[in-house]
């Protein structure tokens, strides 16, 4: 992870660490904090705790997002301090979920914009002039548009990939495929590195082709406190516990010192958490299908 971030994430980059609740790569976020990257434009539908931490750590110049809360547990207070008290100042570019999804679709399709039926009557286009409209060449009606999002680097966490980055994900898929294919550089972080024969045995599970991947990093538990279907459960206590930490900037700094700057890598982080076996997934293995002919 250290080498991948050092080589592929640069100051001033537009960075996407995707994963909708599922497979959020905290391991990459922590490494970016440790390497003290600055002036990043952070993009995610849901900034979640990972961007709250990166904002608190001073990595972010700008945030592009659609829902900035702590799911089921409260607020992202580092984010709120930045917006409400300019501490530190943070530029915002705001969409709805559909708008962010559409931006990544356009990016992955290498089109300059994407069309959607949305935003009429809302204040979002006023708050964000990059939400525009286009006239249908067939019906003449006006439809909303959002501009393509083409990140400098995207980090995708996955259950497994081969050494070339052919990546398989199951459970919630979010927008990982679109984000990876929209990006100039792609880092795939996996729970397990598998032999290519495992990928080839079930090609319909492959979400991201290796031809789009620049680095594959093996980082078990890399998505904690989010989860990896089939590997470990979401650490809901951590999300609930984040509320008081993030409320208090001293406590938040203390957290970063202990769990991010204070550890060398992910395995030390897992130790520091006192091990995470309590979250290990139960077994619910599905049957395979026949690819014969």
């Amino acid at each position, binding site marked *: 992870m250290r080498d991948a971030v050092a080589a592929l994430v640069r100051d001033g980059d537009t960075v996407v660490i995707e994963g909708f609740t599922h497979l959020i790569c905290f391991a990459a976020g922590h490494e970016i904090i440790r390497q003290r990257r600055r002036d990043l434009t952070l993009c995610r539908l*849901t900034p979640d705790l990972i961007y709250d931490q990166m904002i608190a750590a001073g990595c972010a110049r700008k945030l592009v997002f659609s829902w900035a809360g702590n799911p089921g547990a409260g607020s992202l207070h580092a984010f*709120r301090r930045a917006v409400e008290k300019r501490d530190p100042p943070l530029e915002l570019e705001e969409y709805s979920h*559909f708008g962010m999804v559409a931006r990544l679709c356009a990016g992955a399709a290498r089109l300059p914009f994407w069309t959607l039926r949305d935003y009429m*009557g809302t204040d979002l286009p006023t708050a964000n002039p990059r939400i525009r409209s286009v006239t249908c060449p067939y019906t003449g009606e006006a439809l909303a548009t959002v501009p393509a999002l083409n990140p400098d680097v995207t980090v995708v966490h996955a259950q497994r990939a081969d050494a070339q980055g052919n990546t398989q994900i199951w459970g*919630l898929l*979010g927008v990982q495929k679109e984000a990876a294919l929209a990006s100039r550089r792609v880092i795939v972080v996996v729970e397990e590195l598998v032999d290519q024969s495992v990928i080839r045995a079930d090609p319909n599970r492959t979400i991201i082709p290796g031809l789009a991947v620049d680095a594959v990093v093996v980082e078990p538990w890399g998505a904690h406190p989010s989860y990896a279907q089939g590997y470990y459960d979401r650490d809901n206590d951590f*999300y609930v516990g984040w509320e008081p930490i993030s409320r208090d900037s001293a406590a938040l700094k203390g957290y970063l010192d202990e769990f991010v700057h204070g550890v060398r890598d992910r395995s030390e982080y897992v130790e520091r958490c006192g091990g995470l076996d309590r979250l290990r997934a139960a077994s619910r293995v599905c049957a395979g299908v026949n690819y014969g002919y």
Partner: protein
Amino acid sequence: MMATVAARELRDGEVVFVGIGLPNLACNLARATHAPRLLLIYESGAVGAEPERLPVSIGDPSLVTGSLMVCGMADVFQFLLQNGRIEVGFLGGAQIDRYGNINTTVVGSYDAPTVRLPGSGGAAEIAIHARRTVVISRLSRRAFPDSVDFLTSPGHRMRGRTRADLGMPGAGPVRVVTDKGILEPDPETGELVLAALYPSTTVDEVRAGVGWPLRCRETLREVEPPGDEDLRLLRDVLDPHGLYLRS
């Protein structure tokens, strides 16, 4: 009470776009009672979820395991929501105004807000595309201003323009379920009016929690209280740890 009333808004077999919290409780209560064939869709991509535990987030792994389909979010928003497949959407918010417009973005001005809220998430498009929406919120002058500070999710009248004027596919908020009664849009003006009262609450109590001169239907319905079975399910089965149920 709010969960029970919201649950009654759901008909068996309907396709519901579920948010977390009370809506989630309401849907699971409906499934456990009068609507076993309710189809739950979460914006995270889980379709036909049958969670074995009360999901804390709309992306909880329990929504995936044993669901009918999991698809990417581009499919959820383009091929299901924008496609018109969602019959009911639940919405909530920090501010709901006279015309059912919802604000989940900021309190105060957008550029210098006194309180920065999470933002739209999927709410703006749910409010536009779901065939109808049900809004759930506790009454208070703060929560029900005459007009919202920021219009995140459109209701029935946006700066004088109607949903029809703006070409919105869905019917918008047909019910606003509160902790004291139910508001419904006036068919002519789209303004929210009091349609039903909970037992032992008064019109004045409701008016006290609304930031505009609230009008009432000629005849106010009285809302049935939750049955014992509803209460048992909610307290013992659906939310045993009182995650979402206060009163």
